[in-house]
């Protein structure tokens, strides 16, 4: 499928379009299938509308925009979780996504067991995960909680474990969706340092956030999405003022 081999960490999104049906119950029923139509609901939302993006290895990109602008959809498309209606997405190397907090954690399993499962989800072998185990546990600061079922964790502990795992998977591309905000401030700083280390080592970062200060600190480039289209794409120093003007929050 991929004609031109991409460098690890490179991302190419060409004319990407994707619409979503908004429904409370996402599966269909047989009745709808037999009648050949779905029950009434809001019209489909065009989350991505002919979006083209080219991100070079090692770039740090913040994606901002109002709620429903298509930010999270973009990440899920990049992560290969949701297919496009039209257009192509190509991404090189090992992709590590931190999209839903603690999603995929088996609640009855200990933190340690969940590290194994999460590593496995990213295609790692047992030895590879076990080699990183101590680092992950140390980073998560969970201490003896690591051997307790994660259902007893606080939401802050969830994030710490989730981020600790993601941060140690040797990502070429890191996709992060608004999850860091849950941890306490000290841990947030620690995550940012860890991300910076990985970027320094050549990883590409794509971050979705409403936190302009976070984007300013971590991303050199900013993409503003509006109504599924790219409204702005350029240096963060210009992107954030554009974003604030668009949102009417520039204090003017």
């Amino acid at each position, binding site marked *: 499928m991929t004609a031109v081999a991409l460098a690890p960490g490179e991302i190419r999104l060409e004319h990407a379009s994707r619409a979503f049906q908004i429904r409370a119950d996402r599966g269909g029923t047989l009745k709808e299938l037999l009648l050949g139509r779905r029950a009434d609901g809001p019209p489909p939302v065009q989350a991505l509308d002919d979006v083209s993006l080219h991100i070079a290895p090692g770039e740090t990109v913040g994606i901002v925009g109002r709620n429903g602008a298509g930010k999270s959809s973009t990440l899920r498309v990049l992560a290969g*979780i949701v297919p496009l209606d039209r257009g192509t997405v190509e991404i090189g190397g090992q992709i590590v*996504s931190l999209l839903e907090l603690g*999603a995929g954690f088996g609640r009855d399993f200990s933190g340690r067991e969940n590290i194994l499962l999460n590593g496995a989800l990213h295609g*790692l072998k047992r030895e590879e*995960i076990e080699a990183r185990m101590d680092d992950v546990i140390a980073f998560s600061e969970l201490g003896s909680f690591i051997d307790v079922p994660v259902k007893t964790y606080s939401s802050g502990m969830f994030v710490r474990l989730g981020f600790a795992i993601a941060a140690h998977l040797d990502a070429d591309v890191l996709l992060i969706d608004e999850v860091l905000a849950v941890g306490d401030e000290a841990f947030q700083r620690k995550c940012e340092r860890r991300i910076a280390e990985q970027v320094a080592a050549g990883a590409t970062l794509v971050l979705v956030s409403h936190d302009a200060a976070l984007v300013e600190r971590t991303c050199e480039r900013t993409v503003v999405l509006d109504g599924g289209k790219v409204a702005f794409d350029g240096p963060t120093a210009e992107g954030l003022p554009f974003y604030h003007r668009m949102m009417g929050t520039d204090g003017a």
Partner: protein
Amino acid sequence: MTGSVRDLLRYRFLFEQMVRRELRQKYQGSILGVAWYIVNPLVLMGAYYFLFGRVFKVASHDDYPLFLMVGLVVWIFFNQAVLGAAPSLLDQGSLIRKARFPRETIPAASVTVQFVIFLVVLGLVAAATFVVRGTVGTSLLLLPVVLVALFAFVLGFALAVSVLHAFFRDVAPILGAVLLPWFFLSPIFFEPSDITSSSAEKAILTWVNPVAPFIEAVRSIVYDGDWPGGDTLLYVLAASVVAFVGGQVVFRRLQRELAVVV
């Protein structure tokens, strides 16, 4: 296809983790734990023996409890694997929405757990049969082939059912309704010749139901100590290939949108 083989190797450890998770999650916190997987089919077999061996005697076979149990373990595997796989993708929705990995591992892990339980229970029933009936023969060499075919058949069926259920939530209820009459029409408590002398009806009971030849084959080997008929064997192999390939085709076609519907 080479891509999927590479995936399989790369994600072998994920599969192992899923099986482990499936095994532990279900009876987590119960005292008997994993033993429930064995206790349930044994209790069920006891109940059906009472009903069909003592109360309604539909058929007369030597060592009837063994005759019944050999067929019943095959059915229980089919039944449990399909019913377990149906909601499996929805149950693991949070994984599907979060990460990219071969989604087949979810229903496959669920079926594999049931298969392992099936092997254990079948081992117990076969051991008892061999002791009581002395039916150990060279045909036993064929049993692994039949069991692999059975696994492929059930896996293919379960793959299709799981992905269809993710899109159409009627699939599991329909299955629930269909499996009970299907069970009674399967040659578990009887052989077709026990309940009808019409050859057309016998043929329907034997060949229309794809599970029936698997039951016949396992029963020939374990209970009769005999070789299964060539036609039965051929059917078993063909059914396993058709279900396995068909199930994967259906799964592949529908799985792209899974993260959106689960």
